[in-house]
């Protein structure tokens, strides 16, 4: 990993057309200004993680659903959250 020390108001460039400027610093946060071409995706890394996890979750194995439910119910500390209050669409179990 390349490590560069910069102060507020200074910047770095990546390639020909990406520039990252240090706008503000505080003991816990850094505010960055990023100039990049439109076709370059700039994401917080947590959003990239969530994107990857969303993609993985979208192909969940339905065979595992029932054991998941048992697991959750056994671990439930508080009574079941009445999520039905949001008037969800309830599909009968057909049992």
């Amino acid at each position, binding site marked *: 990993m390349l490590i560069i020390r910069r102060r507020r108001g200074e910047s770095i460039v990546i390639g020909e057309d990406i520039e990252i400027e240090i706008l503000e610093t505080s003991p816990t946060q850094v505010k960055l200004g990023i100039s990049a071409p439109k076709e370059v995706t700039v*994401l*917080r890394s*947590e*959003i*990239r*993680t*969530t*994107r*990857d*996890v*969303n*993609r*993985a*979750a*979208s192909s*969940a*194995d*339905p*065979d*595992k*659903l*029932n*054991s*998941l*439910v*048992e*697991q*959750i*119910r*056994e*671990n*439930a*500390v*508080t009574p*079941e*959250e*009445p*999520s*039905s*209050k*949001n*008037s*969800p*669409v*309830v*599909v*009968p*179990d*057909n*049992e």
Partner: protein
Amino acid sequence: MPSISTKQFGIVQFAEEDIFEFPNGLPGFEAEHRFLCIERPALRPVVFLQSTVHADLCFITLPARSVDPGYELEVAAEERTVLGLAEAEAPIWDHSLACLAIVCLPSEGAPTANLLGPVVLSRETRKGVQAVRDDCRYSALTPLQPAASERNAAELSPVGKSHAERLAEV
């Protein structure tokens, strides 16, 4: 009454006001703006987040607090705007807002829930957003605590199978 065809539940009828609108979609699914929350009594507390456009896009979610009873989330300004929450309004969980963690159920390996980026739904404005945190308190792959019976996988697997078959019949 409008209806959609879904992979998991067959044809599902719903009312227009049942839909949650995600103005930004979800990361990785930016073009998906309309979802239904579907519950099945036998599978509570699971909430299915079903796309109203793509039959085979259905996220399995759990209330974040059923994954971690102490789970806390502050709704950031950007997400408040999307949800139509007033600036200073303290979020009222369980009443006006729901906080759901998307579950990964891999064919191999243990199930996990995304507590880094929970889905927040407003029951009043019918808006939704995936509120990705910027702290490091929670993981996108939080393991679900194994239940006592889970430790005996042999005992559970037949149940899982037969349920999967039932699901397929619906």
